């Protein structure tokens, strides 16, 4: 039914475009000078036809289920677990209910079916009314030879503004929810214990309700959420990844931009970029099943103890994953260094590598730093590889052969499975998310500052 309505609206939109255009052309034949090209009158009519109806349709579909639910539940004030009852009613109505059928459920589903019919009908009526009234309004405007071009501009501007508003509001919403959940967490756990504590064992916090924690339990819990090992692990694995990705990525970027022939570049660049397209979960099991055990056997043959889930394996694979970010971006940046600078350097007798080292790279540095920092934040936020290959034990270690863990891994571990939303353990995930967010924000800020500083100096 819904898709039918949407289809009708869209068809009307399309036909009203042609209708509006032809109406405008008719005006031309009556020797009226149009204020815009005929097509604009088509757009105008089409936008007026579609937008109000689609907005009403969208809002209706969004709120209908909630309203119907409230209407039905109001009839059964005696029911205790209302959500469950409503779900049962719905599945009974849809014919796939397998539990015990009570009279209430029967009554409710009859009620549901009648409300549903009313809702459907009124939806169609309202949308049709909206369509007709907005079409008439727009048609009158066209007949009066309105400034269709300007009006279309305004409508489009509002449309674009709304889109960006949605993006901004979503961001704000996410930050606010992170912030509030974290505040709840910090009301039970001391924030300094969280930031500076060196022991991470959230499994100790199996307390269902945060408000039910006794003072003794609270004391016991205080040092269970020290996030230092997580940050250290994250930074450590990111560091290993960057040790792999920066030299390889940068050098291959330089090769592609400066040395490779057009033909080589044409084929090798997409091939390198394929690395970025491999799903991280594939990297993950590659790290966990191939590279990890390989290091373990290698280490054993050298007489070293290597954990099969090691920071080294995870970092190495993560580095490989990040190579294309650095190589592709620095290739672009190096390419955009003006050829005249290279020629100036060659003309004075510099060789190719001298030119690259002393002129091209310094000129491209802001962009290169930008690409590296982008790669760092990618490494910090990367989840799948570390979940699969780095391990879960929050060891505070700088031995790359031991297993370690990261913030993202711990968030996954905390939230996987059924969780109570008010236990400190769950809220810890939000606190971790918030700190991760702040960390990457600071990183990006520094990156922008560095880039800006170089820009001012060189451009």
């Amino acid at each position: 039914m819904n898709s039918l309505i949407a289809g009708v609206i869209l068809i009307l939109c399309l036909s009203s475009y042609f209708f509006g255009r032809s109406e405008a052309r008719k005006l031309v034949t009556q020797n009226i000078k149009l204020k815009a090209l005929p097509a604009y009158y088509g757009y105008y009519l089409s936008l007026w036809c579609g937008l109000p109806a689609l907005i009403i349709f969208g809002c209706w579909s969004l709120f209908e289920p909630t309203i119907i639910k409230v209407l039905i539940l109001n009839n059964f004030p005696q029911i205790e677990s209302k959500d469950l009852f409503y779900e049962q009613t719905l599945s009974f109505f849809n014919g796939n209910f397998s539990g015990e059928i009570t009279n209430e459920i029967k009554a409710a589903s009859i009620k549901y079916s009648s409300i549903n019919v009313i809702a459907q009908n009124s939806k169609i009526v309202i949308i049709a009314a909206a369509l007709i009234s907005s079409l008439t309004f727009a048609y009158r405007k066209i007949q009066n030879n309105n400034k269709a071009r300007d009006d279309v501009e305004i409508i489009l501007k509002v449309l674009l503004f709304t889109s960006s508003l949605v993006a901004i509001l979503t961001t704000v919403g996410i930050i606010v929810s992170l912030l509030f959940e974290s505040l709840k967490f910090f009301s039970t756990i001391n924030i300094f214990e969280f930031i500076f504590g060196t022991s991470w064992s959230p499994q100790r916090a199996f307390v269902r309700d945060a408000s039910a924690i006794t003072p003794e339990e609270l004391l016991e819990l205080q040092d269970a959420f020290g996030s230092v090992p997580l940050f250290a692990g994250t930074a450590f694995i990111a560091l290993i990844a960057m040790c792999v990705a920066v030299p390889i990525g940068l050098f291959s970027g330089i090769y592609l931009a400066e040395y490779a022939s057009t033909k080589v570049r044409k084929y090798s660049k997409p091939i390198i970029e394929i690395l970025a397209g491999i799903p991280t979960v594939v990297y993950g099991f590659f790290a966990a099943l191939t590279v990890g055990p390989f290091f373990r056997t290698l280490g054993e043959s050298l007489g070293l103890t290597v954990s099969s889930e090691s920071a080294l394996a995870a970092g190495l694979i993560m580095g490989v994953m990040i190579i294309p970010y650095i190589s592709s971006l620095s290739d672009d940046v190096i390419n955009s260094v003006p050829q005249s600078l290279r020629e100036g350097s060659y003309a004075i007798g510099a060789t190719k590598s001298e030119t690259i080292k002393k002129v091209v790279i310094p000129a491209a540095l802001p962009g290169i730093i930008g690409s590296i920092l982008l790669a760092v934040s990618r490494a910090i936020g990367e989840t799948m590889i570390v979940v699969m290959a780095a391990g879960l034990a929050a060891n505070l270690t700088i031995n790359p052969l031991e297993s370690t863990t990261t913030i993202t891994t711990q968030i996954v571990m905390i939230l996987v499975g059924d969780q109570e939303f008010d236990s400190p353990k769950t809220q810890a995930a939000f606190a971790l998310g918030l700190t991760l967010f702040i960390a990457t924000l600071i990183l990006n800020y520094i990156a922008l500052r560095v880039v800006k500083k170089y820009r001012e100096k060189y451009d």
Partner: protein
Amino acid sequence: MELNNSKIKIKAKNLNVFYGKKQALFDINLDINQKEVTALIGPSGCGKSTFIRCINRMNDVIDICKVEGSVEIDGAEINEKNVDVVTLREKVGMVFQKPNPFPKSIYDNIAYGPIIHGAAENKDQMDNIVETSLKKAALWDEVKDRLNEPGTSLSGGQQQRLCIARALSVNPEVILMDEPCSALDPIATAKIEELIDDLKKSYTIVIVTHSMAQAVRVSQKTGFFHLGKIIEVDSTEKIFKNPANKMTQDYITGRFG
């Protein structure tokens, strides 16, 4: 007239240049005299720039470019495989159409060449080279107090003189100038022309220009290029007062090009 004034510094013989399949220069034969300014004029795309880029082998940088024939500097062939372009370019400096200072300080822009060629043993010598180069390019007085500022912060005319100073820093014998004033205003142009006049006492200069007036003002010898061929070469006076070729006549009087 000094004795060496008539001595030939650069000699191009049967020079042909191809960009891929397209031939850009046809059998160029041109002699360039020592310590003199030779101007190359001609309509856009006629091969003037391609020709001067043959003198310091800058065309090597372009993959599809192929050079045939001979260019001799002081009687030595430069188009041989075993010629070291680094030494060649130390000897033959170049100034480009658009000022292209490196994104470095004014000091480092000048010091770049000497560092590459190992010309200075210590800081004092380097300071000295930088100062003399900037003085030769008539820029010293304007920038001596801000040598650590980026070269790109200078005005267009100053940037171009910085590029000239950069070319002078490695003590070249020849300076190639590819339309050095086309991006500059008349005042900056006048300064560069004055400078060129001064530099010809010690350097052999080849300048590509679109301005006839400039060719008249700065050069002693002028070559007219058209469609990749040399139409006429003679003393500047002769070319502009009494050209032998009808085409040259038409070009300098503005009838085409």
